[in-house]
């Protein structure tokens, strides 16, 4: 009986010492969804390339696909990032360049000794864009991911908080 009590005490105190799992919600990926102004069910756009300030053009592989949402990384060395989305209008095959400059703040958190420290990006806002204000709808101002939904090797959009919807 006394051993049972000892085991219970050890388990209780052990749980106090345990750092737990490293569930990291920090990310530098911004989640953008594309929508049609016409309320069409097919909201996919033909996205050719994405340029990101601070990254050489050659480093980013072209998209060249119909997409309804994308995850694009913000510059971790700066507090602003400029994105240029090159897309093709399928109606007339014209090429459009949409520019989006976003600003953000960084907050450092030490999660635990065995997990490390991470930067959380917050206060996301559009600083400038060639899109009309009515075309950009803001959602979460923080870049966050749900680690329980993360799938290694694939972009699971559901695991990331939606930051913006862009209407075409």
């Amino acid at each position, binding site marked *: 009986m006394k051993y049972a009590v000892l085991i219970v005490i050890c388990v209780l105190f052990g749980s106090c010492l345990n750092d737990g799992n490293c569930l990291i919600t920090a990310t530098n990926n911004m989640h953008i969804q594309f929508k049609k102004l016409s309320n069409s069910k097919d909201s996919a756009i033909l996205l050719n390339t994405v340029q990101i300030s601070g990254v050489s053009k050659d480093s980013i592989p072209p998209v060249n696909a119909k997409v309804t949402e994308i995850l694009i990384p913000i510059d971790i060395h700066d507090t602003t990032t400029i994105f240029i989305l090159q897309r093709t209008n399928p109606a007339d095959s014209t090429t459009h360049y949409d520019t989006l400059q976003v600003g953000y703040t960084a907050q450092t958190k030490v999660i635990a000794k*065995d997990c490390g420290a*991470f930067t959380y990006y917050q206060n996301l806002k559009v600083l400038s864009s060639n899109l009309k204000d009515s075309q950009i709808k803001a959602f979460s101002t923080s870049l966050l991911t749900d680690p329980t939904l993360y799938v290694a090797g694939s972009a699971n959009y559901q695991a990331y908080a939606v930051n913006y919807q862009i209407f075409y």
Partner: protein
Amino acid sequence: MWLDLPIIKLMLSIIRFFISACLVFFALLLHGQEKKAPPKPKKDYRPTGLRVGTDLIDIGKTLATNTFTGWEINGDVDFANYYLTADFGTWGKDILIKNGDYTNSGTYYRVGVDINFLGKDPDKNMFFLGFRAGHSVFNESVNYYTNVPPHLFSPLDTTYSNPNASGNWGEITTGLRVKVWKGLWLGYTARMKFAPTVTSNPNFVTYDMPGYGVVQNTLWWGFNYQVFWRFAWRKDKVLPVKK
């Protein structure tokens, strides 16, 4: 002859029982008037001594590890079975985290009251429950390495610091103080710490607050094993009741 009737017998029994009960009641009443309960001795709230000690665990951790440096002084003064208690300490940590290192250092104090539940013990040994309010002034810094997939940006070395951070918290305490020899006392204090609040650089969330611990844990615990010396300036005695 009519006295043999069952109903009359029952009535006589009831009358006899009633008379006996009345006699017992009056006897007890008279007895109570003769012997009044002795008056409770009035508590003497004048302090009888100052107990000063230190935490042996902090000293042990400082000597045995290279990740912690600290010490703590504890003191209390008795007011009957209530003790005004104060602690002062320093705390510094140098921790290797998975992607860098974290350091902090600072001072803290706690003040509070303990209630001794062994108030009648002639040696004033204690089993106590108490409350503390804690305050800490400290600095902390972290240096860490970030290399996020898909590795479009070069790895980033980040350093942040909180040079003038401060914080508060509360504690519920319990423990023992036992007189070992003359003025030498040993004891332990178990602490349940709660409600930490920190004022610091908003770009760096405080990780570890001296005196409290990991701030993300809004309910935390602590343990001290302490050695004390008690400087007694008078004997504890019961004051006579004023007439």
